[in-house]
């Protein structure tokens, strides 16, 4: 199973797996499942939580596993299945294992209740995911009252710790994760009195949206932000502002859930000095999931904050091939073209394209749009010329990933300058 040796004089145990994967969520576990039967050494998955499975563990509603497992299952069931698959494939999963830093190119320092570890791996896969920006990061002024949560905090309380929240909630955000929060609140006996979104329309999947609305009938205030938090020690109300008129009013509530506004958990990548993409704030990668540190790969919502769990899982599975190639001494093709997002797109990933590399996962480029466009005409420009133009029959919508077929890259000059990706009205 494990490659434990005895602790050294400093009390540190050294492990030497073939691959270490940081994060036992959908992307990390999928990478482990694909790698474990194919590599000669150990595949070790480290997770700081006390249970493996990642965010789906506490998203107790259906909608998971659609694109990777061709099933429709609940978050916890999906998480369990991913864990079982990785184990069955022969991967070692260690929980309560917090990676605290780097001790070399591909060597990690880890704290566990069983002691400090030094993990010297042949390859490292970063699958650390993303989190929602909390209240301070959103710079919402007011009191520091109890009752303000992110979706992750809320779902941890309700689904994992079986704790209590309030009775009247306002949800900031009206995207996919916001509905997930609404479902959790309902289970906890807390009514959602208002959802706010800064966008002109609530932007989640139509199915969810229509279904959700018929089910809950919450009021949705569009072009609205939470401008102040009122009440201490306990939350009493929030002040909301209409972004167009500037009109403000007070909404009484004892619970505020700040949803969406994802940022990747990139601390470990940054600590390694790995180049980040200023748009995603995650590691800059090519279509083979390579970061700019040799033998260090990145997958999942660390790269695209955030897409659905199944897409993260598919990343992990595909990255396994690149990790294997690296372990077998394969080299990175020469020459690269940088892909750059142009407004209204906030980011695009993968950011680097090389001739000879595999196509991006599901042959899709992933982008994030700040504006709703029903049928966007996507344009690629390189060295001052349009190299591809295509109208897509699905909308670009804020609050969810927008997918562009990577076939559009076919006419890009692999020796040319950066390629910008934007829209034409």
């Amino acid at each position: 199973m494990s490659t434990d040796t005895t602790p050294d004089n400093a009390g540190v145990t050294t492990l030497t797996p073939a691959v270490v994967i940081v994060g036992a969520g959908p992307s990390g576990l999928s990478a482990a499942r694909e790698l474990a039967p194919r590599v000669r050494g150990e595949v070790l998955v480290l997770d700081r939580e006390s249970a493996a499975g990642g965010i789906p563990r506490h998203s107790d509603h259906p909608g998971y596993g659609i694109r990777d497992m061709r099933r429709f299952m609940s978050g916890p069931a999906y998480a369990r299945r991913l864990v079982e698959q990785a184990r069955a494939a022969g991967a070692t999963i260690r929980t309560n294992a917090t990676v605290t830093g780097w001790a070399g190119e591909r060597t990690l320092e880890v704290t566990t209740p069983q002691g400090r570890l030094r993990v010297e791996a042949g390859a490292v896969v970063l699958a650390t995911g993303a989190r929602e920006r909390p209240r301070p990061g959103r710079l919402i002024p007011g009191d520091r009252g109890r009752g303000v949560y992110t979706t992750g905090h809320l779902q941890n309380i309700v689904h994992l710790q079986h704790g209590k929240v309030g009775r009247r909630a306002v949800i900031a955000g009206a995207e996919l994760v916001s509905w997930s929060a609404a479902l959790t609140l309902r289970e906890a006996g807390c009514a959602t009195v208002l959802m706010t979104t800064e966008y002109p329309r609530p932007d989640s999947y139509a199915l969810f949206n229509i279904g959700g609305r018929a089910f809950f009938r919450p009021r949705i205030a569009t072009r609205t932000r939470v401008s102040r938090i009122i009440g201490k020690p306990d939350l009493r109300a929030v002040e909301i502002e209409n972004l167009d008129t500037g009109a403000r009013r007070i909404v009484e509530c004892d619970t505020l859930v700040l949803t969406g506004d994802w940022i990747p958990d990139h601390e470990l990548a940054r600590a390694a000095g790995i180049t980040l993409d200023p748009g995603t704030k995650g590691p800059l990668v090519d279509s083979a999931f390579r970061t700019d540190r040799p033998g260090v790969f990145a997958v999942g919502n660390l790269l695209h904050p955030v897409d659905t769990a199944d897409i993260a899982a598919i990343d992990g599975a595909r990255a396994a091939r690149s990790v294997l190639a690296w372990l077998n001494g394969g080299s990175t093709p020469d020459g690269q073209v940088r892909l750059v997002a142009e407004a209204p797109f906030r980011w695009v990933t993968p950011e680097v394209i090389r001739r000879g590399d595999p196509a991006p996962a599901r042959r899709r480029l992933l982008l994030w749009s700040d504006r709703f466009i029903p049928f966007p005409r996507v344009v690629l420009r390189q060295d001052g010329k349009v190299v591809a133009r295509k109208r897509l029959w699905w909308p670009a919508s804020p609050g969810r990933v927008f997918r562009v077929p990577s076939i559009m890259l076919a006419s890009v000059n692999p020796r040319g300058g950066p390629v910008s990706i934007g829209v034409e009205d």
Partner: protein
Amino acid sequence: MSTTDRNRTANGDASATFDVVVIGAGIVGSAIARKLAGHELSVALLDARDDVGDGTSKANTAILHTGFDAKPGTLESRLVREGYHLLSDYAERTGIPIERTGALLVAWTDEELEALPGLKEKAERNGYDRTEIIGPAEVYRQVPHLGEGALGGLTVPDESVICTWTTNLALATDAVRRGVTLLLNRRVEAVEERGGTTVLRTTGGDVTTRWVVNAAGLGSDVIDRMFGHDRFTVTPRRGELLVYDKLARPLADKIILPVPTSRGKGVLISPTVYGNVLLGPTAEDLTDRTDTGTSEKGIAFLLEKGRKLMPELLEEEVTATYAGLRAASDHSDYVIDADARRRYVLAGGIRSTGLTAGIAIAEYVAGLAGEAGLELVPREDLPEPPRMPNLGEAFPRPYQDAARIAADPAYGRVVCFCERVTAGEIRDAFRSPIPPAGLEGLRRRTRAMNGRCQGFFCGAEVGRLLESRGACVPHENREHGGERRSPEARR
């Protein structure tokens, strides 16, 4: 935790007549109680709140001042200078984290540049002669990420950053170990003279004492009036601060101070001992002595200042926003005075420099009280000062300590991932002489939930540990590769 629980653990018996009651368990009050308890006296430390250090002492810029810019000749100047050395020594003995970062005053205008020689001379009059005036090239060499337009600077190599929470807790813990009775949840509502003793009518019952020391911070003027004085008024001055993520720390390795001008002191950028970077504070006079909320205006002001001072800093994540209330008074100096007739000493008008000056203020107060008739017989049997848990990034923390983890696995179980706080540290906080009363107290003792996720990952777990008072560390996998099945897995 219920209030009765708390009364059992940290609240002593208040029925006896004390020799001295110190009102206010902030840094100044805790230091005074500790100092007096070094003598043959029965001392109580009283606070209106449910924890020590829950008022002005918890929310300042956490700078250990040399006193270089105090007003020369004032009591404040003297006590800050003395306090700097006293607190430095005390920190060494108790493990209060300090980082000797040094400070740099940066001049952005000609007016500010011209003020530098005067500041250097003022520092010398305050007994501090290690400042140096430097040109713009040297400014940018020392702080490469500073925004454009700096014209010059003044170095203050001994300004340092310190943990204000640990300082307060160390002094209060030391006081308790010296036999001080800690009386929390007791707001003083009236004062009565009764035949050589003073009865403090509090929200938690009467407390009888021979002497009273008023170190009540924001409430010190109100208490002072209860003793028949009318000599100063506290104006709560709100200071809002933004705390940037630890990933920002390489940008600011020094305290970057504004040059004080006629328009006030301006905004600083400072590293913290926890590895973050502070931007602030604002300065806004209020009338409400409890309004520690942040404001839209304040945040906008700080962002505007920050954009000029260090544009790169604004690219980083803000992990906390908070506001502290400074007990500014209408006096330009500390107001410390003994009233022998009422057996009463006031330590009022102590602004943010009280963090540095606290121990020196305690020495001074004890001296005044002694002169006014309080009998001070030193004790021989004093316990050693406590060793405090380290919250500083510059010193080893339990999660890094292989030997400690091997001896006690709780130090290897990281509960708060962002700040790397272990279950062992949370348990220790609850077993300490002054356990936390709630989440805020736990945060100040351990840093739990103070990080970038603000509870996204650990909030629920920390909340659960708070309810169980850190005692119930969940069953965890002892064998390698093990996994605790989540609650829903059992359904």
